[in-house]
């Protein structure tokens, strides 16, 4: 009996925690399709006549479209660069014993210790001097530092979890170190690696401070554009804000969905041949 009670209590706690997370998100989703009147009414409304005005308003704005394109290009490129260079680096640190392996690992993490402002200010100066301030290139290069360090940090344990004997078996089977990396280590660690890549994507997709300081108009990313919505006028345009938040949240969710379906298909038994 006592076990059932504690089980019920445990489930209750989890349910409350889940509701705490979900309700605000749900409310945001609802408000995105509400008219202003329905939002500011003192009695919260669960049923209302939905409108697409907010979403359309957000989508029709040139700045949102530009921001979306910037965000996709900048996040995509920096995640790609982080993966292309970060995964082999993590593999090397995980597999090839060297004196500086631990130092590399710590250095990579230590990049994340600095407050972003401390990085952003020198970066402004650097990019201004190079003449690339407020450009996608500048953001991509800057974000690549973030994705690199995150990818490396998260991929090292993923590669370490691949049993060494599997790679040795491939070595005895006649494969060289590069083939072993691509044909054995990468697929064997794929599950955790995709987690690492998604995490680094979410990190740069949501990044605000550095984007705010490195862009003024051309290269603005979606979080910056969305935040500017609050400055549309005296009256806070709640519907539009909620709609932009929802639109901002969609790409990471889609990305996660695509990757996880890719993952499950990649891990399915390949037909022989």
């Amino acid at each position, binding site marked *: 009996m006592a076990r059932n009670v504690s089980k019920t209590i445990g489930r209750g706690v989890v349910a409350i925690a889940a509701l705490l997370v979900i309700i605000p998100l749900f409310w945001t989703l609802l408000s995105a399709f509400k008219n202003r009147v329905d939002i500011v009414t003192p009695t919260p409304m669960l049923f209302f006549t939905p409108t697409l005005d907010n979403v359309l308003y957000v989508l029709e704005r040139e700045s949102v479209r530009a921001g979306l394109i910037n965000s996709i290009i900048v996040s995509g490129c920096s995640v790609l660069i982080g993966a292309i260079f970060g995964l082999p680096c993590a593999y090397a640190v995980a597999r090839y014993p060297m004196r500086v392996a631990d130092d590399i690992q710590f250095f990579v993490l230590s990049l994340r210790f600095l407050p972003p402002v401390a990085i952003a200010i020198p970066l402004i100066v650097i990019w201004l001097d190079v003449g690339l301030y407020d450009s996608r290139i500048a953001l991509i290069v800057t974000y690549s530092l973030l994705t690199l360090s995150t990818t490396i940090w998260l991929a090292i344990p993923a590669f370490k979890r691949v049993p060494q004997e*599997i790679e040795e*078996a491939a*070595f*005895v*089977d006649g494969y060289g170190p590069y083939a072993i990396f691509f044909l054995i280590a990468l697929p064997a660690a*794929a599950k955790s690696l995709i987690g690492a890549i998604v995490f680094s994507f979410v990190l740069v997709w949501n990044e605000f401070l550095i984007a705010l300081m490195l862009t003024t108009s051309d290269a603005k990313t979606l979080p910056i554009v969305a935040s500017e919505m609050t400055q549309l006028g005296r009256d806070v345009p709640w519907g539009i804000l909620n709609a932009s938040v929802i639109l901002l949240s969609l790409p990471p969710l889609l990305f996660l969905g695509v990757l996880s379906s890719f993952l499950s298909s990649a891990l399915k038994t390949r037909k022989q*041949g």
Partner: protein
Amino acid sequence: MAELSFRNIAKRYGDIDVVADFNLRVEDREFIVFLGPSGCGKSTILRMIAGLEEISGGELAINGKVVNDLAPRERNVAMVFQNYALYPHMSVYGNIAFGLKRMKIGREEIDKRVRSAAKTLGLEGLLDRRSTALSGGQQQRVAIARAIVKTPGVFLFDEPLSNLDAKLRNHMRVEIARLHQQLKTTTVYVTHDQLEAMTLADRIVLLRNGAIEQVGSPREIFERPNSQFVASFIGTPAMNFFEVDLAGASAPCSKKARLAIDPARFDLDGRSKVVVGIRPAHLRPARQDETANIIEGVVDLIEFLGNDALITFKYAGEEVGALVPAQMSPRVGDQVRMTFSDDNLHAFDIETGRSLAKRSQGRP
């Protein structure tokens, strides 16, 4: 088809000698078992054959060709790992075919060989399964199929059965023995399990601290152990040992233990103390009129083993184990009086542990 020759092989990690001056010739078609306690260097030697460990010194030749600096694929070897080491993201078929793909063999030929290897190991129905969805025994079979499909010159087994439960281990042991009978491929098999070594090996190489303690057929090693270490390592239940004071070469009989040591069989060489050993299975209850080679004591433990019972008693300060037929087993607290035939006595130097048996003296 391959023969192996080790000449002064050494392995060092920094200042530590793991293997020093290892010399051995493995004949074509031979099944060699490296046996020894953990840390004796047996796996290291196997990994040096496979090309997974660099050889620090000496020469390793396969079929007369020195392979010290060759990559694994140029050595024509295949290895089965302790934890199977199957590629987790591939099907059983993919696992078996993976090595062949590297060998630039045509698709049809690969398919033919994979299916025939799978048939040999009873895996036909499992080819499409994910390797992670198999039981331990099935995984081990896939690992073996992956090795035989390459038709290598040498099979290397690194404790292949130690992750299996006892019943399956016996079963797979028989399968490996059959497989060797069928394929006759030169095999080097590493284990710490003496039963596996005794049943599978043409010759056992018993290792200790990176050096060969004894090389010989299972029978030789069991009947004529070179040293106290070998004698204690081989045989279950373990051999009984006593320190024996010799009154002098003329009267080779101890004061502590009344055991006759035949100077014709053992090179006593004026020693005043030796260690003698008798296997528990060689002890039998003594008749009343027998007075030679008597070991007696009060039984303090009985372990029932099925057909036999292992009784334990104290004699001359040592614990003695004796195997007696279960239905003749005494009870705890009974006085027992055991004896043995002279032929079954082993004697070892008390310092070095080397056997004192005269080599010319053949034992039955």
